């Protein structure tokens, strides 16, 4: 492949960022919007061209005679050489998962750019918003095409900062400021794990590049020489620590606390960053290093457990949230955890490791329908000016486009045939059952919960009881810039399930023929339909069942509503212990012990000189007395010395 096009995929967004960021003040809103959308549109076309060429051209550079898809570093420039062996490069790696991610990111990003034109129209700082969106797109694209783990880390930090800037977009609101701070610090903490993981890994491999590491994992293992630390091999430690970085970005327990708060950002941002792209970076990271994880099954087990616990926790919490964006946020956490479990249970001996394929498939379909749901939520918020479902209800008559597209999104996430979520979820569940029945059963339950809380949300927004405020302020569908992305994404969510995904993306890059596993599909479909039926009974029309249920279990409801007090626990640790006890006592120690000692030297010097200055009295008589005393003393000493 020519180098020009891939470079443009990265160059256009960063150029847009610089143009809009520096020159934005001097531009009209319209100009900035058009520039941003145009830039992203062109990037999307190029990315599609590159990805489609990679998948379909049949060029021997991309696929060999056996059907193995090759990993192609299109370019790889030296950026910084730590030592002669350990070099950081900035490059562009084209392989199945990065090509797929190119499509996902540019599509969603373009939809969000378009959507924001309508959504952000009245906002101050419109230009700044587009500049940050471009910065994010650049960073995310750079992350997925990374040729080495250090490049990934670089862009990993950059997406973190773009996310910080966008969450805090409404910077005059204290809640947005603290949410952005929280997001950055929590993910930074996770990145510390990532960094230490890279340090350990690169210490043994002497390289950052993915291709040698993932193609020859046994030699990586050999290079560690069987070193262990606290009972686990150093490679396991490295992989687990790297995964901790992924847990931070992908909001896995216990580092999930930033994502619900991140909903303070504008809704298009939530759709782009906190639903479809950045938060799946952790999944992508594990997928990228997958052959290495396979070598150390303990690390994969860790991934599976974290995913399984998180998926269940987030699904339960999602059932009790009032803010519709928070419901979607917890749903995102739960779905990403699903992908993690699917990756964690994948083994080459189980149907050619199709858990990996299923996970990537779900990443793809989830990005589409979750972005759709978030953008739909944005349209709702835009119409009723509130985030809570209590301000909604009965909206299906007023906002038909939003209603139908939202419904499609809900059906897709619930896993109803023939929507896209059905296919990817079925593959994932099949992979889990293949590994161990427990994972399958557990995650089927989570899938049921998913269907329940999504339809709870759907009914509470569009059915239930019409809100009386509509009489004064009649809600209506959003302008075309906002509706068009909804329709497109809904259409994609309807058909994406029929993509023969296994032909394109598998763990060993060989084609795999997907087939529906009927027993698994039937089980999950039944569970989903039952859950939807339950939600229909409870929430379709206004009735007392939900409040009675709440009254029956007030403690559980309250705990789930408060997200099982994770935020309070963190608050206690960070504010009470770290800030008040550690930081303050160190600062006190510095002023009152170290500095006081230094001042003490000065004081002692001063005191001493005060004490002895009386000897310099200026009176001749005293001096003469001292003179004679000194003379006698000297004479005495001399006398003793001589005799």
């Amino acid at each position, binding site marked *: 492949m020519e180098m020009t096009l891939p470079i443009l995929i990265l160059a256009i967004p960063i150029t847009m960022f610089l143009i809009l960021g520096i020159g934005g003040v001097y531009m009209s809103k319209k100009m900035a919007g058009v520039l941003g959308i145009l830039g992203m549109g062109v990037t999307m076309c190029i990315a599609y061209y590159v990805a489609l060429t990679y998948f379909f051209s049949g060029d021997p550079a991309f696929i060999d005679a056996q059907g193995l898809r090759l990993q192609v570093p299109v370019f790889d420039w030296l950026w910084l050489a730590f030592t002669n062996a350990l070099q950081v490069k900035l490059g562009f790696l084209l392989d199945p998962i990065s090509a797929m991610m190119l499509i996902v990111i540019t599509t969603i990003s373009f939809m969000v750019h378009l959507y924001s034109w309508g959504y952000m129209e009245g906002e101050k700082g419109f230009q700044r918003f587009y500049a940050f969106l471009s910065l994010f797109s650049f960073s995310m694209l750079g992350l997925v095409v990374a040729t080495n783990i250090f490049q990934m880390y670089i862009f990993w930090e950059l997406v973190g900062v773009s996310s910080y800037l966008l969450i805090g977009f409404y910077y005059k609101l204290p809640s947005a400021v603290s949410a952005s701070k929280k997001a950055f610090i929590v993910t930074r903490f996770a*990145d510390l794990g990532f960094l230490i993981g890279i340090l350990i890994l690169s210490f043994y491999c002497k390289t950052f590049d993915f291709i040698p590491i993932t193609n020859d994992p046994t030699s990586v293992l050999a290079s560690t020489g069987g070193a262990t630390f606290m009972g686990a091999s150093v490679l396991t430690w490295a992989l687990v620590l790297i995964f901790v970085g992924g847990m931070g970005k992908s909001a896995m327990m216990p580092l999930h606390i930033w994502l619900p708060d991140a909903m303070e950002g504008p809704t298009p941002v939530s759709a782009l960053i906190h639903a479809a792209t950045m938060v799946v970076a952790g999944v992508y990271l594990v997928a990228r290093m997958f052959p290495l994880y396979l070598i150390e099954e303990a690390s994969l087990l860790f991934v599976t457990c974290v995913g399984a616990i998180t998926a269940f926790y987030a699904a339960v919490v999602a059932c009790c949230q009032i803010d519709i964006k928070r419901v979607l946020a917890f749903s995102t956490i739960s779905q990403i955890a699903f992908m993690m479990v699917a990756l964690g249970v994948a083994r080459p001996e189980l149907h050619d490791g199709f858990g990996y394929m299923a996970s990537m498939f779900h990443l793809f379909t989830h990005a589409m329908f979750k972005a759709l749901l978030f953008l739909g939520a944005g349209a709702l918020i835009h119409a009723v000016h509130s985030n809570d479902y209590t301000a909604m209800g009965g909206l299906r008559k007023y906002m038909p486009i939003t209603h139908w597209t939202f419904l499609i999104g809900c059906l897709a996430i619930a896993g109803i045939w023939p929507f896209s979520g059905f296919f990817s979820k079925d593959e994932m569940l099949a992979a889990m059952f293949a590994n161990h029945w427990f994972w399958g059963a557990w995650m089927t339950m989570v899938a049921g919960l998913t269907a329940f809380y999504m339809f709870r949300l759907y009914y509470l927004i569009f059915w239930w009881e019409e809100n009386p405020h509509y009489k004064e302020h009649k809600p209506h569908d959003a302008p075309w810039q906002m509706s068009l992305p909804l329709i497109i994404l809904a259409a994609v969510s309807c058909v994406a399930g029929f993509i023969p995904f296994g032909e394109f993306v598998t763990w060993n890059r060989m084609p795999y023929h997907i087939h529906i596993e009927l027993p698994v599909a039937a089980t999950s479909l039944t569970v989903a339909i039952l859950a939807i039926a339950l939600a229909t009974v409870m929430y379709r029309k206004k009735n007392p069942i939900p409040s009675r249920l709440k009254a029956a279990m007030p403690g559980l409801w309250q705990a789930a509503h408060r997200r099982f007090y994770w935020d309070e626990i963190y608050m206690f640790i960070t504010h009470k212990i770290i800030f008040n006890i550690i930081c303050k006592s160190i600062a006190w120690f510095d002023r009152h012990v170290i500095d006081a000692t230094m001042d003490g030297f000065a004081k002692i010097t001063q005191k001493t000189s005060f004490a002895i200055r009386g000897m310099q009295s200026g009176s001749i008589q005293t001096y003469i007395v001292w003179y004679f005393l000194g003379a006698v003393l000297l004479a005495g000493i001399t006398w003793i010395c001589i005799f």
Partner: protein
Amino acid sequence: MFSNFLIWFVIVPVLMLIGLGLCRNSSMKAIRTVMVVGSTILLAMSLWLCVDFLAQRAAGAADEMLFTGSWMWYEPLNIHLAVGVDGISVLMLILSSVIVFAGTFASWKIDPLPKNFFLWFTLLSTGVFGFFISIDMFTMFMFYEVALIPMYLLIGVWGTGRKEYSAMKLTLMLMGGSAFLMLGLFGIYWHSSADPNSLTWNILEISNNAAIDPGWQNYLFCLTFVGFGVLGAMFPFHTWSPDGHACAPTAVSMLHAGVLMKLGGYGCFRIAIFLLPQAANELAWFFIILTGISIVYGAFSACVQTDLKYINAYSSVSHCGMVLFAILMLNTTAMTGAILQMLSHGLMTALFFALIGMIYGRTHTRDIRQMGGLMKIMPYLGVCYMIAGFASLGLPGLSGFVAEMTIFFGSFEHADTFHRVFVIAATCSIVITAVYILRVVGKLLLGPVQDEHHLKLTDATWFERVATITLIVCIAAIGCFPNWINETIQHSFTPIIEVINQAANSGAMASVM
């Protein structure tokens, strides 16, 4: 003598001093002209030096130091004015001239006594430039003192708050450091050669002679490392830094944190490590503990401060601790990281102090609890402050990231538990740094406006923009294209690493025998 290019780095500031002396007290225009012309010439000279240096290296000049020159100054003690630069000094000269340039613009409206201020300011920079070009320990020390003394007057006269106390404290503590240093340097001189008739102050000759016996090396290493370490704000000798910085006027804070603290790191590595390699190998562990504490301790202390300057002073303790920490790792990668960190810290702290000065000039407070929402009122300064903050917390694309990563990866080459523990403790600072930086950014720039009087304030003026943009461009240039710096300095480490390895081997031999 005047044909040597390096000597002009001292002559130009002296000419500036003369020019300033000729200006009338009230003539702001003349004073500014002298300063701007002089600092621009210095900047151009340092850039040209870098280009010329790289060209000579490319042409195959393999000497350790280029542009060398040596002139007898005081025969009985064999003191020379000896100059020469390697890649590291070249970069330090660029850093100094950038900061002098930016500092000139940042103190555009200094009041009172502008002429006297700039006289002392220029004298200070003379000392700094002289220090970096010297390869004779005595002249190096002399220039070091020249840079130190004006600080007392600059803080005492033009400072704010408890300025007399802080000026006194800073000067006394640094002079205390100099006392150690002087002892150390004299000790090195007396042992510099096996032949008592050819004792020398010249760094290169001392290193070649390698005549200092290991027992003496240990004492001398402690003396010189502590002496320079005081200036590098090493725990527990860092307490001058918060008070001193907090009371110093803007340009002085910039120059002090930006360049003067680098004298400490540079000296540690040029004298303590290079001339006393055996002691460095033997005693590094002790100073790794101290500097490791500095890194974490400074960062934690910064978290609870409420005065902007105190926050940056403690953050400097943490970041400068990183410089000394990396130097003590005694390998090429970590030392490269140390130099990068010196550059990076110099630039971003200068930017921080410049911005704090500009904000303080408008709001008349540095207490973050009394400010808020300044981003809305002065967007330009707010954005600059954020960029400085991001550089400080290590955002890729800005200088801090490159420096810290090079240090971490270099330090991780040591496989023993002791080093591992301290390296991992040092990496924790990236999280703590993020905490205190975002705390300040959140309180100072974002959120609602705290004080209604602030609504009337204006954004940056043109001279303030010149100062900040110069620094930001440098920060971004290092962050985006770090490898040219690596290439510039790598060659300079070869002799140092060589002597350290030799020392390590001979030490091992001695212990076997």
